C-alpha cells in the first residue's frame, strides 16, 4: 500500500510539471520485438524485416491482397523458364539524395546470393530465400537480369522479402555500418535507434511514391513513425488502451473484447500465413494405423476451438494450405466431429478400450492443446499434454528421417509466400525438414518435386491438388486452422490495413 501511495504522490508531482508534447502526426506502433539489425541482407526474422521494410523498398512488393506488384522495378518480364528481366524505374532516390540505379539492384542481389558477399567471409543468411538464383547482371543500363540454375516459379513471390541497398553506401560503411545505419529508398528514414526501446523514423520527402499499383502513390502521410518495442502482451494492450500507441501487433484473442469495448480503439484482423496442425507419429506405436489416425481426426472439433478459444479468428483447413494460398483445393474431405465414430474406428483397429498418448506442444499453446486433448479423450484417445520449448521440440520432431519419439505434436508451419512450395514440401516430402509425422509416399514426393519447377500455372495447381487429395485421405496430420493476425488499432488511425504477410507497411497510414 505504501508504495502505491508513494507512486501516486510522485507521479502526481511529475504530471503537474510536465506538459505532454505530442507532435500531431506521429504514428506509434507497439511492436513485439526489436530489430536484430538494420541490414536487410543479414537477418532471418519477420519482425526485423517489418521494421526495415518501412525504410527500404524492394524490387517487387505485395498489395494488401497479397498480389505481387512491381515497386522499384517498373516491370518484370519472364524471358525464359530460368531468366527474368526487371526494368528499374528512373528517378528513385536513396535517403542520402543519390540516385538508385540498376547497379544497386544487381549489387543487392549479389550481396544476398553470392558466397562470402557480406564481407569477412560471411554469406547472407537470406541466401536460401533466393533459391536457385545463379546470377544478376545489368543489361541495357536500366534492366537487371536474374538467371536461375533451374526453373523456380516462386521467384517473384520471394523478391518482396529482399530490400534494395545502395552500393556506394555499403562500400562506404561496410556491413558493420549497415547493421546500425540505413540508406534505403523507402518512405521513412531513420532518425534514431534506441536499442531495445524504440526505432524512430521520419518521412522521406523525396520519396518516389512506392508501387504504382498500390494507391495512393506519393509521400508518406505521417511526419514520424515510431516502432516502440513492448514484448509483453499485457503491456502492449495497456499501451494501446492508454493511447500511447496507435497500432499493436499480436493482440491476444482474449483481449479482443477489451480492445473493442474500449472507446477509441478497435480490432483489425487479416488471414495469417501460418497453418496449425497435429503431427501423428506414423512410425510410432498407434498412429502407424490409418484407422487410428482417422479416429483422431474425427475426435477434434475444430469449429468449437476456433469459436471458443480463438474467438472466431481463424480459418478452418482440411489440408496443409491456407484457403488463400496458391492451389489450395476447396474440395477436400472434411473429417467432421464425431467422437462415437472415433471410438468405433479405434475398436476396429484393435483398441476397444481406447489408447493413451501424449501430445507435445509449446507453452504458448498449452491451453489450446489441452482443449484438443480433452476432445481426443472423449473420442477414446486419452491424451496428456506435455509442454516443451520450441527449440527442443524441433529437435525431437523435425528429425529429417532420424527416428522420432513421441505420439503427437501440436505445431505450426509458416508460409509467407502463400505458395505450397515452402509449406507443403517441407511438411510432407519424405524425410524433409518439417515432416514431423514421418510421412512418406513416393507418389506425393514426385508430385511435389515436379510442381516446384512446373511453369504452367494450371498444371502446377493440378499437381498440388492431386497431392492434397492423397494426403487428405492418408491423414499424416490433423489439419486444424490458419489463425488470423490480430491487430489492435487506435480509431485515430486511417488508411492502414493489416497485410496478410504480417508486415506492417506504414506508407499510407495517417493519424487524425
Amino acid at each position: 500500500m505504501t508504495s502505491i501511495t508513494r507512486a501516486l504522490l510522485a507521479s502526481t508531482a511529475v504530471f503537474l510539471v510536465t506538459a505532454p508534447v505530442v507532435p500531431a502526426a506521429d504514428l506509434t506502433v507497439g511492436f513485439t520485438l526489436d530489430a536484430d539489425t538494420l541490414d536487410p541482407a543479414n537477418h532471418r526474422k519477420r519482425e526485423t524485416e517489418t521494421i526495415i521494410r518501412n525504410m527500404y523498398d524492394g524490387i517487387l512488393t505485395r498489395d494488401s491482397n497479397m498480389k505481387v506488384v512491381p515497386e522499384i522495378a517498373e516491370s518484370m518480364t519472364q524471358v525464359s523458364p530460368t531468366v527474368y528481366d526487371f526494368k528499374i524505374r528512373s528517378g528513385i532516390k536513396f535517403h542520402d539524395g543519390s540516385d538508385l540505379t540498376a547497379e544497386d539492384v544487381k549489387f543487392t542481389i549479389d550481396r544476398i546470393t553470392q558466397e562470402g558477399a557480406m564481407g569477412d567471409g560471411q554469406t547472407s543468411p537470406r541466401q536460401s530465400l533466393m533459391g536457385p538464383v545463379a546470377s544478376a547482371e545489368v543489361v541495357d543500363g536500366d534492366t537487371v537480369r536474374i538467371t536461375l540454375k533451374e526453373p523456380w516459379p516462386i521467384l517473384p513471390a520471394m523478391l518482396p522479402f529482399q530490400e534494395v541497398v545502395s552500393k556506394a553506401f555499403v562500400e562506404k560503411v561496410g556491413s558493420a555500418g549497415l547493421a546500425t545505419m540505413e540508406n534505403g529508398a523507402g518512405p521513412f528514414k531513420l532518425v534514431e535507434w534506441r536499442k531495445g526501446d524504440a526505432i524512430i523514423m521520419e518521412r522521406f520527402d523525396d520519396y518516389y511514391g512506392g508501387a504504382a499499383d498500390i494507391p495512393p502513390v506519393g509521400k508518406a502521410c505521417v511526419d514520424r513513425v515510431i516502432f516502440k518495442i513492448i514484448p509483453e502482451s499485457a503491456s502492449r494492450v495497456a499501451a494501446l488502451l492508454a493511447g500511447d500507441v496507435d497500432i499493436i501487433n499480436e493482440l491476444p484473442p482474449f483481449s479482443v473484447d477489451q480492445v473493442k469495448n474500449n472507446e477509441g480503439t478497435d480490432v483489425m484482423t487479416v488471414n495469417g500465413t501460418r497453418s496449425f496442425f497435429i503431427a501423428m507419429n506414423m512410425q510410432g506405436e498407434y498412429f502407424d494405423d490409418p484407422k487410428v489416425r482417422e479416429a483422431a481426426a474425427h475426435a477434434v472439433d475444430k469449429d468449437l476451438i476456433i469459436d471458443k478459444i480463438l474467438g472466431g479468428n481463424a480459418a478452418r483447413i482440411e489440408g496443409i494450405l491456407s484457403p488463400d494460398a496458391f492451389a489450395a483445393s476447396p474440395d477436400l474431405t472434411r473429417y467432421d466431429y464425431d467422437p462415437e465414430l472415433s471410438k468405433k474406428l479405434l475398436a476396429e483397429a484393435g483398441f476397444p478400450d481406447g489408447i493413451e498418448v501424449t501430445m507435445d506442444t509449446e507453452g504458448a499453446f498449452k491451453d489450446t492443446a489441452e482443449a484438443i486433448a480433452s476432445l481426443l479423450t472423449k473420442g477414446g484417445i486419452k491424451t496428456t499434454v506435455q509442454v516443451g520449448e520450441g527449440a527442443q521440440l524441433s529437435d525431437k520432431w523435425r528429425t529429417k528421417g532420424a527416428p522420432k519419439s513421441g505420439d503427437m505434436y501440436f505445431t505450426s508451419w509458416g508460409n509467407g509466400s502463400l505458395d505450397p512450395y515452402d509449406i507443403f514440401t517441407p511438411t510432407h516430402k519424405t524425410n524433409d525438414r518439417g515432416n514431423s509425422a514421418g510421412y512418406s509416399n513416393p507418389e506425393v514426393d514426385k508430385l511435389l518435386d515436379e510442381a516446384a519447377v512446373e511453369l504452367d500455372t494450371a498444371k502446377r495447381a493440378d499437381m498440388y491438388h492431386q497431392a492434397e487429395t492423397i494426403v487428405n485421405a492418408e491423414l499424416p496430420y490433423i489439419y486444424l486452422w490458419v489463425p488470423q493476425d490480430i491487430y489492435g488499432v487506435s480509431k485515430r488511425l486511417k488508411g492502414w490495413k493489416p497485410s496478410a504477410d504480417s508486415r506492417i507497411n506504414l506508407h499510407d497510414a495517417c493519424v487524425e
Partner: protein
Amino acid sequence: MSLGKLIERLIQLVPVLLGVSLIVFVMMTLTPGDPVQIMIGDQAVTPEQEAAMRRDLGLDRPIVERFFVFLGNAATGDFGTSFYHRRPVLEVIAERLPATIELSLVALIVALLTSIPLGVLAAIRKNSIFDRIATVGSLLGVSLPGFWFGILLLMLFAVHLHILPVSGRIGYSAEIEPITHLLLIDTLLRGRFDAFLDALSHIILPAITLGLPMTAILMRVTRTSMLEVMRQDYVTFAEAKGLSRRRVIFRHALKNALIPTVSVAAIETGSLLGGNMIVETVFGWPGLGRLVVESIFLRNYPLVQAAVLFYAVTYVLLNFVADILYTVLNPRVKL
C-alpha cells in the same frame, strides 16, 4: 582490512568465474535446441548452406575446443559475436547495460528511502496497528510476483489514471546527447529539466516494482535490528540520562541498527539484477535482462555466456562490498 586481504579476495574471484563459465557453457550447449535450426525456422535451406551457417558461428567444432577458445578469447576481452545481431557481444551488451544499471540504482534508492524509515517506525511503535500493517505489507512485498504487481501498477497509473507512461525509458522527442548514459543524470547535466521529468516519469513504476521485494526485506531487517539495539544497555543508559527519545533513537540506536541493513542491502542489490528480467519485460525497459531472456530462447550462446559472467562478477563484487561495509560499520568484526 589490509591490502593483502583485499588482493586475496580478488584472487578468489578467479575460480568462481571459471566455474560459472564452465557451468553456463555446458548448460547452454546441452540444452536441447540448435541455434542454426532456430535461425532457419520454417525456411528452405540446403544441407550445404546449413553447414556453412554452422561454420560461420563456429558451431562445427567440438564443444571442448569451443570452451577453451571461449576462455582464451574472454581472457583478452573478446566475448565473440552475437549470432543474431552479428556484432561483438560486448558492444550489444554495452548498449543495454546503462538502462539496467539506472533502473537498479533507482530501485535501490527507492527501497532504502522507504524501508529504513518504515522499519524504524515499526520498531519504535512495536505491536501498534502500524507495525502490524507493515508486517503484513512486507510479507506481501516479498511474496507478490513482480510480474503481476507490475501489470497492476501499469493498469492503474498508466491506463486508468493516465498519469504515467506505459513503457520505455524516455519520450521520443527528447534527444539527449549521452554523457554517462544514465538518463536521469544526463538530462540534468545537459540542463534539460523537462527531459529529466520525462525520464523520471518513465522510471517510477519499474523501479517500484523492482524494488518492492527489497523494500520488504530491508524493512524487516531494520525493524528487527532496531528492536535488538533498543534493548541494549547503552540505549537504556542514554534514556536514563534524560536525553529526548528522538535523540536516543536517531543518534544512538539508529547508527548501530543500520549495520545489518546496509550489508543485507548490498547483497540484495545483486538480486535486483535477477528481477530486472521480469520487470524489463513488463515495462518494455530497454535493459540487459530482456536481452538475455530473448537470447536464451534463441540459443544465442555467446551473448548469454557473456551476460551471465557479467552477472556473476557483479554478484561476487557486491558480496565483497557488503563484507567491507560490514567491517567499516562494525570495527569489532574482522574479515
